[in-house]
């Protein structure tokens, strides 16, 4: 599973990345995950299955959905509380559920 997180500058999401990585490792799953700034995302679209937005740029959801859902990328905003508490397990679950959706 390839996950890309985006936020304004890719700073706070990079903390989230570590938490999700740790959660995945604990469950014995290997995932590829990175955090980039929203403006840089187009360079990483090729290697992304799930695109998760930091809630602070939730306003970009409909635009990014419009751009990337046709390319088969699942797009969603990270749950606000999970983001705040940096709950890697929950966000990983969110990514899995997205991918499982038809």
């Amino acid at each position, binding site marked *: 599973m390839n996950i890309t997180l985006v936020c304004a*500058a890719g700073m706070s999401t990079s903390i989230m990345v570590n938490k999700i990585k740790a959660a995945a490792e604990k469950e014995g799953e290997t995932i590829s995950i990175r955090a980039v700034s929203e403006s840089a995302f187009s360079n990483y679209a090729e290697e992304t299955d799930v695109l998760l937005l930091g809630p602070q740029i939730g306003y970009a959801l409909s635009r990014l959905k419009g751009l990337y859902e046709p390319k088969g990328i699942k797009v969603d905003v990270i749950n606000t509380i999970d983001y705040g508490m940096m709950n890697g397990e929950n966000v990983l679950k969110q990514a899995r559920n997205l991918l499982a959706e038809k």
Partner: protein
Amino acid sequence: MKINAEFTGKISELFGNISNSVVLKSLMAGMMAAFPATIVGSFATILKGLQIQALQDFYISSGIMNVLDLLIMFSINVTALYVVAGIAYGFAKQKQQDAIPAAIIALFSFLIITPYTATPTEFGTVNYSISMGFLGGSGMFSAIIVGLIVGFVYSFIKEKGWTIKLPDSVPPIVSSSFAGIIPGLILSVFFAVLSTIFSHTSYESIHQAIYSILQTPLMGISSNIWTMLLVIFLGQILWFFGIHGPMVILSVMAPIWMAVDLQNLTAFNAGEPLPNIIGMAFYTISTIGGTALGLAICMILFAKSSRFKTLGRLSIIPGIFGITEPLIFGTPLVMNVRTFIPAVFLPVFSALFSYLAIASGLLPRMSGVGVPQGVPIILQGIVQGSWLFGLLQLVLVVIWTLCWYPFFKKMDGEALREETA
């Protein structure tokens, strides 16, 4: 709550559209394109600015001073050159066009409008030179305007497909290099004609005209403390609705404030008095992380509920580096009426406090060095040319902690009751 969701949805959309506009994104791209040069220049400025006599003597005797001067001269003092190319590049890139030709045409056009002088040498040849004045901070607005015009016209022509048609047998690599010629020709002739016209006006150059008509008044308004307080206030209101407000607002203000900082930096390096109190550096130093670090410190020191104990441990280190999203969403501060007052007004107060400290002469003015993201608080202040700014940030952190305390105490009490209930 339903009305709120609809309302925030609308606000989100509006500000999302603003910060996603091609123009603003190109501006940001232009500023970021200059970073490899300006950050090096900033570090050189910091090293050069260390007021230790033995060190300064060593700089001169070892030739290090010359190295530092070169690094500063061709970064800080010619930032507009990099910005103009970066803006046109960013514009063309967003329009999914081949962006390098746009950058080159922008640079070409920018040089065309820059006044040059011809001086005869003793050998009978002529020495041409351009004054560097407009290649730095003073040329920032010309860079923005030229960059945007070039980006727009270039992308427009490419989209329309106006190009020299070559036979199909010509390899694509050759024909693609021809594709930039039409926009290059149109734009450079346009700027050359315009430049010639302006040389006959009292402004003498496009640069001077833009500087006098646009840049000076805009910088005057933007380097006014009240404007900055209003801008910070708006940014925090947006955060209240869960939108990264400063990012939205900075996409408009950053280019202007950076031009203001460049003025200070140029004066700083020349050993002249600094013209401005506020600017991008001032904004960053005085409002880093939107004061939420104070809240994190409250959590570490005073939290009784396990919820805030956890959040405190989680958010303190990022908070020191100015990353406070965990606090904003975890506390939460978003849509939380009870934290509205400190979350919105504390950053405004911090900026006012810092302003008064400098305006009263208690602290010197900031050099305007561009600090890359992720430099920890206090160190961030020190690199502005004086350890006093580190002290300022330390004082601010103490004020933040004290101001957050009563609000935090209440939330913590409630969280504890919920947990034990």
